[in-house]
């Protein structure tokens, strides 16, 4: 989900850029040199995974996985997502320079929020961890939709119907993202639990 170039007002674009700079700054500060390779490769993973389309009825939606990236990287999700968006702009022209800030906030802020809300549930028993994982997936998409909505509404009140449509379109994605995140975390818990926050000493 990207806001295209040329739609938002200057003020909204500037606030998005400012927030993205702050988030990326914090993320980079916490990213020591020996975790750059890890963040870069996980960011590549996020890029590839977000191209996957899963069927829903006659149509299909693409998964986002920003919540998962948040769980795996903490604050470093900000620069990782910024970098993935730069590459998407260069490859596909989804988003561009002026919307880079807003789009980074749209994806990364929910990732970081979900990280802090749910990181302590991840090493609990599945009865706690799996509902939390569902919440990570669903909430990250919902929050992204809400930020998109806010950006549109703050640009132009006439965008109300568009905003409603955008958020409405996110509801099925939320549910599917929640389900997929739930399975994904269950798998990670069995196979590689130290990737999830809680067990390792996190620097998020």
């Amino acid at each position, binding site marked *: 989900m990207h*806001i295209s*170039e*040329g*739609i*938002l007002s*200057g003020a909204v*674009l500037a606030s998005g850029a400012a927030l993205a700079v702050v988030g*990326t700054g914090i993320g*980079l500060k916490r990213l020591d*040199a*020996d975790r*750059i*390779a*890890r*963040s*870069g*490769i*996980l960011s*590549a*993973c996020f*890029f*590839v*995974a977000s*191209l*996957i389309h*899963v*069927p*829903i009825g006659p149509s299909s939606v693409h*998964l986002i996985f920003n919540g*998962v990236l948040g769980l*795996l990287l903490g604050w470093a999700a900000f620069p*990782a997502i910024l*970098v*993935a968006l*730069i*590459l998407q*702009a*260069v*490859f*596909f*022209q*989804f988003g*561009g*320079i*002026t919307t880079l800030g807003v789009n980074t906030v749209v994806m990364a802020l929910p990732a970081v929020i979900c990280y802090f809300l749910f990181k302590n549930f991840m090493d609990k028993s599945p009865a706690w961890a799996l509902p939390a994982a569902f919440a990570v997936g669903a909430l990250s998409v919902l929050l992204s939709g809400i930020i998109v909505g806010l950006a549109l509404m703050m640009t132009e009140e*006439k965008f*109300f*119907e*568009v905003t409603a449509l*955008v958020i409405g379109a996110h509801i099925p994605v939320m549910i*599917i993202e929640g*389900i*997929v995140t*739930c*399975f*994904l975390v269950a*798998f*990670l818990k069995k*196979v*590689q639990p130290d990737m999830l926050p809680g067990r390792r000493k996190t620097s998020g």
Partner: protein
Amino acid sequence: MREEFAIGDSSLHRLDPRLKIVAASALSIVVAVSTRFSALGVAVGLALILLAFARLPCGAIARHLVMVNGFVILFWIILPVSVPGTPWMHIGPIPLMREGLELAARLTIKSNAIVLAFIALVSTSSVVSLGGGMNRLRLPDKLVHLLLLTYRYLFVIQEEYERLKRAAVVRGFVPKTNLHTYRTYAFLVAILFIRAAARANRVQQAMLCRGFQGRFYSLQEYAFTPKDWMWAAGLGLAVAIIGIIEWMPGPWS
């Protein structure tokens, strides 16, 4: 997924990446905050001229534009019927409002002008040279490293994903709307993340072995040629003209 526009030898392909990043940013920002149709018209013209200089395949550009305009189409569907104003024409009983149509048209022109200029200026550089340019524009080292590493492993991870997907298909996996499908994709992505983390450890060790000290070295030289200066002047002038048309009162307003 490939950098299809980065291949070529036009004058824009050879331009200094720093100049391209700065010019594309200035142009995008000016167009993004412009509202007058006259200024936007000049911006579209400028973008088309740049594209002509870049000598890119038209079919590929058209394909990209279609994808990019998905979001914009939403506005064409909704704004003409939702924005209050004077009816301009009717489709059956539904009046289409002039104000809504104008707003949708303005967004579309802006969006496409920026995208076209971005293709001509930024997508004609390889990610590696853009990264080098960003580094020389004093963007944080770590951010540039992250960009270059992500780019380096993007294709590796994508191949890995294709391989896993093929293995699933060979075992009879057909994506449908059911839990089994979602579970399969979840496990697929989970294993992708796990392998990526394991790979990251190996990459990290290999980088340390080769004496990585937090710097990437580039053999590419970044020197402004007279040609770069000419382009810089021309692009600066063009951005200034769009700004003047937008903000100065005149016969065009």
